[in-house]
């Protein structure tokens, strides 16, 4: 039985949080890179936490952009040395759209992955 006229809206912040987790879970991804914009967002989030006592899901390095009817996700990341950069990038694209679609039901039109740095493998 389907309820009529119910519209679900998934907030961009939720999509960004899910996308960030999906991207970070891909083998070879060392971390997401927040950049200046992410740093500002993080400070704002710290402020929010002080104020509301709630913690927003981290989504550093991920931007969700809507343009007309398309949903684009942009991921900035750092990969570890010892893996093939092109393959990691393609896997992140695939995983982000798969996991976002799976968990929210929202279709992702395009995923842009920017590899900003390659880190030496940690010996830990």
């Amino acid at each position: 039985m389907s309820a009529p006229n119910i519209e679900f809206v998934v907030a961009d912040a939720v999509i960004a949080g899910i996308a960030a987790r999906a991207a970070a879970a891909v083998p070879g991804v060392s971390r997401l890179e927040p950049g200046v914009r992410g740093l500002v967002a993080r400070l704002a989030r710290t402020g929010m936490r002080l104020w509301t006592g709630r913690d927003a899901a981290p989504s550093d390095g991920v931007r969700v952009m809507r343009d007309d009817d398309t949903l684009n996700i942009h991921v900035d990341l750092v990969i570890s040395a010892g893996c093939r950069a092109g393959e990691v990038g393609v896997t992140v694209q695939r995983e982000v759209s798969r996991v976002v679609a799976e968990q929210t039901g929202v279709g992702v039109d395009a995923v842009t992955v920017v590899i900003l740095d390659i880190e030496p493998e940690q010996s830990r």
Partner: protein
Amino acid sequence: MAVNSTTDRDYLLPCGRDLEQVWRRLDAVEAGLADEHEASCAHCAAARESLRALRTATRELIEDPEAPPPDLFGRIMVAVRAEVRRGRTLDLPTPHPGSVQISEESVAVVLRYAADTVPGVRARGCRVRVAESGPDGERVIAVEMSVAVRMGGSGVAELIPVVRDRVRTAAAARVGLRLGRLDLTVADIYDAGEEAR
């Protein structure tokens, strides 16, 4: 400074108002001077609520007598460095919608490391640019690299093909780019005694 609504769509609310306008009118609306749109629009109301929370939180941060976290400076520098890298990227091939890009600098690190593995060669500078697309849409890169070679070691003529080989392999295996042109400059020589490292 006007906010350009075509490039800064991030700051445009779904109702068409831009966030800065909401910010400027924040006090006026609180004082009961809301215009017709502001009084009824749910998007504006939600934005106002977030902005008020942000304002309160930042005030608390400013009034916080404690010094900023010690790693703040480092975090800012990392962020700025990432911003610089973002400016120069190479496209990698992908079958999915969207794109995969890699910063020229990270490619340079990989290639420099590859050249370094050749005995008797130390890589110095490395610059990477995209040259052209190959026959099957493959990206071909052009690389300028300067190296130092060991004094009394193998001749430069023997070393160069080895370096070229390692760099080409690394570009393909580690990154997924095809090496087109490699300009090698022997910029320096070093003493074999320094090799102990």
